[in-house]
């Protein structure tokens, strides 16, 4: 009884807070489950804002280190010669906005909130001249875009009337697993006037997850099973097809 009352009070307080908030947003799902048939998916982000302003949505996968390698020609063959490691590289990155970013987000704000691939704060592991660092950085972003982990295009946040907005976030089949953050900013007059960060999780589930976990937790046994399956298939086929 007391618990039910507490819940009612909590919900009422929540609604009141939401009314006072300039921005609320949520995702159609907070979990992307990678199942055996997974071939990419999309989530719907929807929300409402109070007052004037444009909306920017930033989706980031877990950060990590990435090494970028550059090929050069040695004795007529292209081989990896130089490399540069970057820290703070989001494994996945998307931006969506209700208008072209250049029209309403000043550079200082893009810097602060890392809005757009060119504003990602990637930390090179060692000092190179700025020209080389920029080239390695651009090379990495190109590679990430080629496998659709980054998107050169800014997605569209569309408004339904004045208050409600929504956008679709597309995740390709090779979406990395881990904890994601979805940051929604309400920008007016070159300032962030409200912000909300929503967590999201990408996880393998079902058979694929079991296989992956098994392969890591019981690596030796997994290797033996892989061998056994192949031998059985080959041997079995040999017996079946001989007569």
């Amino acid at each position, binding site marked *: 009884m007391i618990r039910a009352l507490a819940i009612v009070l909590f919900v009422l307080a929540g609604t009141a807070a939401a009314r006072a908030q300039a921005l609320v947003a949520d995702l159609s799902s907070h979990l992307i489950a990678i199942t055996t048939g997974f071939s990419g998916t999309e989530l719907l982000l929807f929300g409402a804002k109070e007052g004037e302003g444009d909306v920017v949505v930033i989706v980031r996968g877990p950060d990590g280190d990435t090494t970028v390698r550059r090929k050069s020609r040695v004795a007529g063959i292209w081989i990896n010669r130089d490399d540069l490691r970057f820290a703070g590289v989001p494994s996945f990155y998307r931006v969506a906005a209700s208008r072209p970013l250049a029209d309403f987000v000043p550079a200082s704000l893009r810097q602060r909130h890392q809005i757009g691939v060119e504003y990602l704060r990637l930390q090179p592991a060692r000092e190179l001249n700025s020209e080389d660092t920029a080239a390695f950085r651009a090379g990495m972003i190109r590679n990430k875009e080629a496998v659709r982990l980054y998107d050169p295009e800014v997605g569209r946040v569309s408004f339904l009337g004045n208050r409600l907005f929504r956008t679709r976030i597309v995740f390709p089949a090779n979406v990395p697993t881990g904890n994601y953050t979805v940051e929604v900013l309400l920008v007016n007059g070159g300032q962030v006037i409200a912000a909300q960060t929503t967590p999201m999780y990408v996880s393998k589930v079902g*058979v694929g997850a079991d296989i992956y976990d098994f*392969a890591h937790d019981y690596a030796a046994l997994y290797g033996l099973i892989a061998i056994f399956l192949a031998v059985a298939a*080959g041997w079995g086929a040999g017996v079946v097809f001989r007569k």
Partner: protein
Amino acid sequence: MALVPVYLPMAETAIDGLLLVGIGSGVGLLSGLFGVGGGFLITPLLIFLGVPPAVAAATGANTVIASSASGALAHWQRGTLDVKMGLLLLAGGLAGSAASVRLFGILAAMGQIDLVVSLSYVLLLGGVGAMMFAESVRGFLPGARKAAPAVPRAPFGANMPWKTAFPRSGVETSALSPVILGFIVGVMTGLMGVGGGFLLVPAMIYLLGMPTTTVVGTSLFQILFVSANVTFLQAWSHHTVDVVLAALLVAGGVVAAPYGAKLGARLGAARLRVLLALLVLTVAIGLGVGLVRQPADLYSIRIDVSQSGDKDQTP
């Protein structure tokens, strides 16, 4: 677009399952046709489809187990498997493959694994393919027919210690020569995800002087165990064997291989050798062009272990 997308848990991407079964049957057909494992086709194809190279090589070794198991079984029943020779080759092969799995990890960390794999393919496939091609063309020339099986020289390592007789193959050579040969092929297996049949068969004929009757069965025997060893070690130390990927490829392969074998019997050995030589040369030239031509993007990335496993990404 993918008709039946299948998420490959270790490769961490989705590829059309039908396409994989199709590739498996295509390679199975060729492997039945030519009596090779087909690893030298599977690994580059998988890399081309977007499977990380490390997973492609390790899973390639896994699929080779299946094709060599059925082949080795058949030869063993027929008595065309020289077990003594096979065991010595295997001793070298196991050591070589263990060494190469280590080497694979080191080269991957240095960013040179793709180069080494491509270079090995180009040099070995190119060399073997050119030799086979020249030999088969000579066989077709009039007048040169009778000089075909030219194995006049003493077998490789004939003057090394531990001279041993191999009654099943009718050769006598040092016990060290199959061990050394097996070691070299074992290293290739680990690095390239190939069984090494395309290397081992000519080496056994030309270097060890073995008769063609026991060569195929014995090489399959060695390949079976070496690729099993590589599969185990790669799964154990690098988590790069994808059983879902392997299962799809093997499913296509085992069904198609017998048809390849039937087709092969109809085509005849001489024509088969020319075709195999051409196939091997084509793969070698294709990979060679890739090394020499300026890549579309000079930059490539590798996501470090901390993030999502130890894997390369080559779009």
